[in-house]
């Protein structure tokens, strides 16, 4: 843009910005600048496709933003012909083009837009890549585990079901619950399950089911479809809502080949609504009823058996003292018999031993008697000897006369032969000299 024309309006006092420029001139410059931007391809979802007289207008959106687009009608029809299908709202597409700016006029409004001259529906590879990016992002945040950690009741009283009102999934859920023998409370939350309004409608239904209370588990059910049909269940805000829901969600929105992001954040992922209903009520109620009766019977039986067994034990224990006494009595009698026999044997032996001892004693006694008589004889002899003891005679006042050699002098004649004699009394001796 050049300098302001000479004689043009004076700018704002004090402002150092260039201008003022005539707006048409600025708009044309802006268009030139925008058209100079690099031509690129964009991917996103078609929204608000609106054919006009010469052009077709629409928006290209994704979760993070949108760009207004337009194409010449001739180009648009040619594109659709080449694709073999109309390009409609909700479709994931790839467009080629560049920025443009309609400068407008005194009577026409200006507008910015991305001018599209080529397009094609996004292939499954494109969609899968986008889904995988979202899946990885959510799982990295730990949102794949929150639902799995929730307790799932085996016998919920109230189940919420989010599904299309006219879909076959509704009948499948009912049939499966009936086969389970479950006849509790079912809260239907009908919502679109495949167009671009599906994700926010389902998210609202989930929040409402939680708000109602008493809903213990939620089933999101729809029949199978192409991956494009299942894009609603790969929508980020819906997946985040499910991941953070405080009650378990059982998803059955996909099919065997394509796994939606919802399948990864839900508590359980099932391939069909039938399986989802069975997962919502893991217990087979009819079997549980009969099983409970059997348990009650077993409990009663065990109770009776235990009491009977205990009573038998007590009866045996009550009989036991009598039997014990009888056993002891018999044992005592046997012991007594053995004792008597032993005593008899020992008595015989003892008598024999005593007899032997008596014999020995008798012999000894007899020997003792002989000793006494001998003693008495000796005493008599001793008395006799004492009677002849010269010492006893001396004690009576007699004296012995002994010569110097100690020989007794028994006569006066013998005394005349010795000059010295000894007179021996009982208490000593006196020497005497013969005159």
């Amino acid at each position, binding site marked *: 843009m050049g300098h302001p024309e000479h004689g043009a309006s004076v700018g704002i006092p004090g402002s150092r910005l260039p201008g003022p420029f005539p707006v048409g001139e600025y708009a044309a410059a802006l268009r030139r600048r925008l058209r100079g931007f690099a031509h690129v391809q964009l991917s996103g979802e078609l929204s608000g496709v609106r054919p006009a007289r010469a052009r077709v207008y629409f928006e290209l959106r994704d979760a993070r933003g949108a760009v207004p687009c337009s194409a010449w009608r001739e180009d648009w029809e040619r594109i659709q012909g080449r694709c073999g299908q109309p390009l409609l709202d909700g479709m994931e597409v790839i467009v080629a083009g560049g920025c443009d700016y309609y400068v407008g006029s005194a009577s026409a409004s200006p507008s910015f837009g991305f001018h599209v001259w080529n397009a094609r529906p996004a292939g499954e590879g494109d969609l899968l890549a986008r889904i995988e990016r979202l899946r990885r992002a959510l799982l990295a945040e730990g949102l794949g585990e929150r639902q799995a950690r929730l307790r799932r009741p085996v016998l919920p009283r109230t189940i919420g079901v989010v599904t299309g009102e006219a879909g076959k999934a509704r009948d499948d859920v009912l049939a499966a619950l009936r086969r389970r023998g479950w006849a509790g409370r079912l809260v239907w939350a009908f919502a679109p399950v495949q167009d671009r309004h599906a994700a926010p409608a389902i998210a609202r239904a989930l929040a409402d089911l939680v708000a*109602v209370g008493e809903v213990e588990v939620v089933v999101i059910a729809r029949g199978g479809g192409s991956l494009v049909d299942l894009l609603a269940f790969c929508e980020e805000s819906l997946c985040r809502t499910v991941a953070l829901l405080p009650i378990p969600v059982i998803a059955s929105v996909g099919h065997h080949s394509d796994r939606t992001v919802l399948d990864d954040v839900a508590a359980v992922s099932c391939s069909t609504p039938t399986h989802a209903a069975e997962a919502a009520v893991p217990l087979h109620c009819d079997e549980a009823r009969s099983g409970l009766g059997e348990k009650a019977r077993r409990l009663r039986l065990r109770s009776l058996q235990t009491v009977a067994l205990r009573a038998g034990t007590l009866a045996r224990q009550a009989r036991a003292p009598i039997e014990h006494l009888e056993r002891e009595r018999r044992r005592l009698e046997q012991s007594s018999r053995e004792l008597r026999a032993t005593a008899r044997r020992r008595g015989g032996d003892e008598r024999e031993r005593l007899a032997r001892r008596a014999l020995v004693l008798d012999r000894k006694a007899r020997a003792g008697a002989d000793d006494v008589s001998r003693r008495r004889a000796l005493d008599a002899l001793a008395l006799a000897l004492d009677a002849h003891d010269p010492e006893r005679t001396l004690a009576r006042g007699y004296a012995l006369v002994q010569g110097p050699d100690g020989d007794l002098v028994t006569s006066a004649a013998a005394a005349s032969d010795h000059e010295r004699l000894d007179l021996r009394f009982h208490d000593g001796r006196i020497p005497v000299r013969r005159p």
Partner: protein
Amino acid sequence: MSEDGLTYEAASARIEEIIRRLDSGEAGLRETLELVAEGRRLIEFCAGELEAVGKGLQELRLDELLARLAASGATGELAAGSASPSCRCG
């Protein structure tokens, strides 16, 4: 789930445990009587839970339920059982 947090699965598992204990023959008379009494209470609880989902399918529409709740200005009516069912199936 009961008010004290007892669940069907917990009650059912405890009943199995009680029966195994009684089957073992190791429980004395006093323990047996206590276990039988506990087992009977749990069986009654489980029977009540099964009866609650055996009286007939009650189908409600969330939009109608919310409208009724909004009109009554209260929540938790479903729990109180005051919300009338849209239809009741056998």
